[in-house]
């Protein structure tokens, strides 16, 4: 970081002379940076061997001088020579001077023939090795002229926008960084691969980087606003060993904090219990994310409850993201592209949940070729096909997954399990269509179904159904918009026919219809504004109990439907204050209307809300607004770059949540019901302050960060002892208001490139709750703070992947965490012909600490490009040390005595093998 440079750069165009004059003030500036500055402010172009100028630092002060004069100053007393040809090509050489005068006619011809210039391949040297030479593709050396030459007014600014796509499949590259070094400004592509960047007019070099893709750059001459589409190729290392380093500075440069992106490659490297790549399992390995135990895909982010996460799959809300007791997630790994978890600075675009947003994005189908992929594991099999529908403008992916797990249950010689069934199936359909370069259409549909029956008794079923359509419209280079409409549905049912008189079925469902319009307006280099409007209409059927046989005496019992409308407008500005300081400032105004028809109860003021204190009931008609809440939310982040490779960030944000899961179980279960905020149940509120330090090492291949946060939670729902949550017309009588405070510090080191990659993180965090309902008769733990079920102070995660060669890699996953809190008895007594235990304070104890190591070997078939089927195998062992990690500790009375037990979900090492294929 020697080149602490102070540079004021000003270009003076003198019409009389063809030569440009420069004002330069540079102190200890890297020569490369100097050349970039010149290049970006003129049409000079430098050719040199980076290795040679590696140690060259430039200190030069010049006023209205030509490049010749400036270079003379720089190279005086050095071994370097320079020469400038008629095309403004500058050649820097070590010991000899290039004669530029020899082929002038040839060069002139070239220029006259074409509007753009083709240049000789530029010799570029990978930054960290200093020796490996690589020839860049011709496109990288082509000068793209953007806009109308006639509009050229060097003083103005212009916006360049376009799509970044995968050259092979035509799929968009999400989250690619388009960066302009000279201006120290850049943007990331959105989920459609779209970007829009405002730059001063003139010569620029854009550097385009994305994880898993080969870095590329584009030279452009920006006359006025225009389009630039870039195709990137997948990073395929050649079979000769090369060290790759990429300039991935997103974590340092981005204003967002507390954001973690996982792409499917990383997700696939993480060993899971049944060998199938799982987004939620991968998310659980990130700092700040915990869960109550192994068979729960409910996850807790920075001390938030599991229902405080907004889980989006291509903008559709997935209410139950897990299958098969939580051992699989709802997301088929064959269609997933990336998963992004926002845990601190949640963009103003999102709202409605307190803790986090998990944004899972699916791939787009291959626009050029038909192809398929799939896999077979011990429990599931999956297959997907994709391809173009018409001439490269439309593509689709159709994929499905199903279990064949019943055989497992049947092999067990136990009558109850023989009568058991458990399984799931899901399907995705994604279609995208390019109407024209300014209009794109995306259709996304998802359906899942789970069912299980244990011991031939009660049958449980649940299902997610989501569909949406999105239209992305580019108004002009500065303004683009996405219009989304969709429906989300979740339902579960429990039924039993074992006793004909009591045969019943219970059903719950939730329907939401939503629409949103999101806009991005790149005003200028300093301001990039996003704004939009969203609305979600909820319709909940909180529970219907019905007879399930002709002899059944079960009375039909229906809890009244609930309706609500959650709408919001938001606006945010990404402000580049200076090259060092940038801000994201956003507001979101959310409004929630609890709508009729509904019967509501009011309670005697000053008394606890109980059935006996119901004072009055009121009936509302359809369309009546029963209660309205309006919450302004703030989203603020600031980033200050300390050096080229380090920055500090601060963020503050507030959130409101209007839909709640009612669950008094420790792990979220598929039969938890949801409840809207109403006149008695206030919206949950939260705010979070966080501060972080980010530092990258080794050419940004090692990212490190420390983040510190403090959160407040209000109107958190806790439950009275023995609360009835199902078929309850007045939930408010069974819940208690609680508040919470959460704080923590997260250390994170990630190695993004090289043979060994992965991350290690350590988190210290606490979450404490307190019943703060003044009317509560028996507040939990006498109204004192107590640790929440998912309070795990110390968590260490190690995720590593070591690539031995191109066909063979090893993954290791090590997890340690403090055991979760648990309530244990204080006394034993004899009652009802048995010894029993008495419980007192909640979560006073902890289960034993958790430790697990997983290991997997990934074997790829041969790498011939042209073969019918590409195979790969993953085999490994989950819980390698066979440690019997406690899931819970509990006491049970049976046979007239009481005993303590420890329940482990996996009491041994679980080997797995999965076969994956691609054709």
């Amino acid at each position, binding site marked *: 970081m020697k080149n602490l440079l102070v540079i004021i750069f000003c270009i003076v165009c003198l019409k009389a002379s063809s030569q440009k004059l420069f004002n330069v003030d540079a102190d200890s500036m890297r020569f490369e940076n100097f050349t970039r500055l010149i290049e970006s402010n003129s049409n000079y172009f430098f050719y040199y061997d980076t290795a040679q100028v590696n140690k060259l630092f430039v200190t030069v002060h010049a006023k209205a001088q030509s490049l010749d004069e400036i270079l003379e100053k720089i190279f005086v007393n050095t071994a370097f020579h320079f020469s400038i040809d008629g095309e403004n090509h500058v050649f820097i050489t070590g010991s000899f001077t290039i004669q530029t005068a020899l082929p002038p006619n040839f060069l002139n011809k070239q220029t006259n023939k074409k509007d753009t210039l083709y240049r000789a391949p530029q010799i570029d040297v990978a930054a960290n090795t200093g020796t490996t030479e690589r020839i860049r593709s011709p496109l990288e050396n082509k000068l793209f002229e953007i806009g109308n030459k006639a509009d050229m007014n060097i003083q103005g600014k212009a916006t360049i926008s376009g799509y970044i796509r995968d050259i092979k499949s035509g799929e968009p590259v999400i989250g690619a960084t388009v960066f302009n070094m000279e201006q120290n400004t850049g943007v990331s592509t959105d989920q459609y691969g779209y970007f829009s960047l405002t730059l001063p007019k003139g010569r620029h070099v854009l550097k385009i980087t994305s994880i898993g893709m080969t870095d590329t750059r584009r030279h452009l001459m920006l006359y006025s606003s225009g389009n630039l589409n870039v195709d990137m190729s997948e990073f395929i290392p050649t079979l000769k060993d090369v060290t790759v380093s990429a300039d991935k500075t997103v974590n340092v440069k981005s204003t967002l904090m507390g954001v973690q992106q996982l792409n499917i490659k990383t997700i696939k490297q993480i060993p899971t219990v049944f060998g199938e790549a799982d987004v939620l399992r991968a998310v659980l390995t990130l700092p700040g994310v915990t869960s109550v135990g192994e*068979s*729960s895909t409910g996850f807790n982010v920075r001390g938030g409850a599991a229902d405080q996460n907004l889980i989006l799959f291509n903008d559709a809300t997935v209410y139950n993201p897990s299958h098969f*007791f939580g051992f699989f997630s709802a997301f088929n790994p064959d269609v997933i592209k990336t998963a992004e978890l926002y845990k601190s600075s949640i963009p103003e675009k999102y709202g409605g949940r307190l803790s986090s947003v998990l944004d899972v994005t699916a791939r787009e189908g291959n626009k050029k070729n038909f192809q398929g992929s799939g896999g077979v594991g011990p429990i599931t099999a999956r297959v997907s096909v994709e391809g173009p529908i018409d001439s490269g403008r439309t593509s689709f992916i159709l994929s499905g997954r199903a279990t064949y797990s019943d055989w*497992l*249950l049947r092999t*067990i010689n*136990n*009558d*109850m*399990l023989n009568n*058991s069934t458990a399984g799931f199936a899901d399907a995705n359909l994604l279609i995208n269509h390019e109407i024209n370069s300014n209009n794109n259409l995306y259709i996304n549909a998802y359906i899942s179904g789970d069912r*299980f029956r*244990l*011991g031939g008794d009660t049958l449980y079923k649940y299902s997610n159904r989501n569909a949406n359509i999105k239209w992305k419209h580019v108004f002009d280079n500065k303004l683009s918009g996405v219009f989304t409409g969709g429906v989300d549905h979740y339902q579960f049912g429990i039924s039993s026919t074992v*006793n004909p*008189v009591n045969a019943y079925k219970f059903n719950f469902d939730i329907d939401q219809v939503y629409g949103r319009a999101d806009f991005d307006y790149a005003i200028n280099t300093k301001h990039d504004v996003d704004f939009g409007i969203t609305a979600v209409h909820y319709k909940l059927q909180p529970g219907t109990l019905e007879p399930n046989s002709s002899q059944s*005496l079960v*009375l039909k*019992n229906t809890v009244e439907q609930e309706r609500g409308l959650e709408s919001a407008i938001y606006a945010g500005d990404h402000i580049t204050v200076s090259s060092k300081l940038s801000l994201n400032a956003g507001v979101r105004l959310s409004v929630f209307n609890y709508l009729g028809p509904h019967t509501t109860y009011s309670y005697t003021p000053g008394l606890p809300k109980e059935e006996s204190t119901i004072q009055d009931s009121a009936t509302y008609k359809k369309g009546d607004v029963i209660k309205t809440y309006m919450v302004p939310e703030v989203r603020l982040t600031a980033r200050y770059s300390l050096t080229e490779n380090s920055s500090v960030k601060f963020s503050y944000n507030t959130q409101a949540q209007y839909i709640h899961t009612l669950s*008094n*179980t*420790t792990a979220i279960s598929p039969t938890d019901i949801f409840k809207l905020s109403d006149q008695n149940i206030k919206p949950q509120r939260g705010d979070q302050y966080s501060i972080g330090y980010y530092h990258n090492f080794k050419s940004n291949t090692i990212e490190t960060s420390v983040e510190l946060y403090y959160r407040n939670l209000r109107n958190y729902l806790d439950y009275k*002892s*023995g609360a009835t949550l199902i078929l309850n017309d007045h939930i408010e009588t069974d819940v208690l208001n609680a508040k919470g405070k959460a704080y923590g510090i997260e250390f994170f080191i990630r190695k993004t490139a090289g043979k060994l990659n992965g991350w290690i993180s350590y988190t210290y965090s606490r979450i404490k709750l307190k019943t703060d309902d003044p009317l509560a008769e028996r507040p939990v733990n006498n109204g004192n703070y107590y640790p929440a*079920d998912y309070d795990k102070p110390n968590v260490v995660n190690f995720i590593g992947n070591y690539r031995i060669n191109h066909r063979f890699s090893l993954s290791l996953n090590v997890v340690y965490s403090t055991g979760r809190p648990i*309530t*244990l008895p*204080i*006394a*034993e*007594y*004899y*009652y*009802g*012909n*048995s010894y*029993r235990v*008495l*419980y007192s304070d*909640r*979560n006073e*104890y902890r*289960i034993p600490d958790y430790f697990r190591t997983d290991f997997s070997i990934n074997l790829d078939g041969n790498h011939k490009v042209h073969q019918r089927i590409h195979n790969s195998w993953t085999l490994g062992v989950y819980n390698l040390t066979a440690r019997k990690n*406690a*899931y*819970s500790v*509990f*006491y*049970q*009375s*049976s*046979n007239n005595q009481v005993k*303590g*037990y*420890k*329940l*482990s*979900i*996996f009491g*041994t090492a679980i080997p797995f093998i999965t076969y994956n294929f691609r054709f």
Partner: protein
Amino acid sequence: MKRFFLILIMIAGCKEEYNPPLKNADYNFLVVEGNILAGNDSTFVHLTRTVAVSDTSNVQPELNATVKVESENGESYLLQEHGNGLYIAPPLNISLSENYRLHIITSNGREYASDYVPVKQTPPIDSVSWKLDNNNGVAIYTTTHDATGSSQYYRWEFTETWEHRSRDSSVLIYEASLRNLRYRIPSEQLYRCWNINTSGEILIASTAGLSADLVYEKPITNIPYASQKISKIYSVLVKQYALTKGAFEYWDNLKKNTEELGSIFDPQPFADYGNMHSITDASEPVLGYISACSVAQQRIYITWSQVQWPYSFPECKDTIVSPDNIDTVFSGFDFLPVGYVYPPPGAVFGTSQECADCRLTGGGSTVRPSYMP
């Protein structure tokens, strides 16, 4: 939800005994268990104290307390102490239209009382039935209904008694001290044993969500296939109590907190202290829920011939002991004399102890309860 964990155990999970380190505090709370019974049944109240969880000793009885049943109108009935914390009143003939409570003054002068509770009239048991299934054994059910629809909440207790026999009926007894072999008197028999087991599982049901106050085939207990329980004759006495809604919730909470934990979707356990309160110190926890009701009961018998499941005796070592060896063989512990070998003179058929002493193969008492044939 309760059985979710079973599938996980199947996959690889396990449940093992574990005693977490607990803070060793002795709270010594008073525990009051009992029902104020209407009709011709005696009222039993059991007073004990809680012990620490790790404490392996039995719970401590609360002795020398004054225990009374009181009506809202001021009637009062004293219970007699019968030792070991048990207090009993003869049939009280209480009124079904009044509310009663339990009132206790302990020997240290502290005063406790329950809430006043109504007296529920328990309907008769319609039937106690059973079904045989070769995989699951015999399942026993209770069916009951209340035409008035006022019971709605039920609790059951059962006591099962079964007779089991040894392979051989020993008619001889060897008195080692006298070196004498003689015929047994009936009270010395070791051939027939009777076991008694009282349910420790909380059995409750509610008909609140049904169109009729009918409990149909509520499972009471299950006898595993080929169990010794039905090797000769088995009897179960089911007692039925109608509960108030409050009492039902108490028992339901107690069941959830002490019997049903251990699934993967466990709720938080909590304390439900019941309807007993300390009058001396309102903050002092007292455990127990006092109900008042009449009792209905029904007994059924199941004989082996009705199930005819395989039942085998242990392996026996048989021997014929010549008169000279009687002292040598029967003074040891290996053999019991069964009977004289015919024809005389004097050889004795002997067999392994466990083949002629039913107490060794299934326990129980050799005294026949009056209700057993």
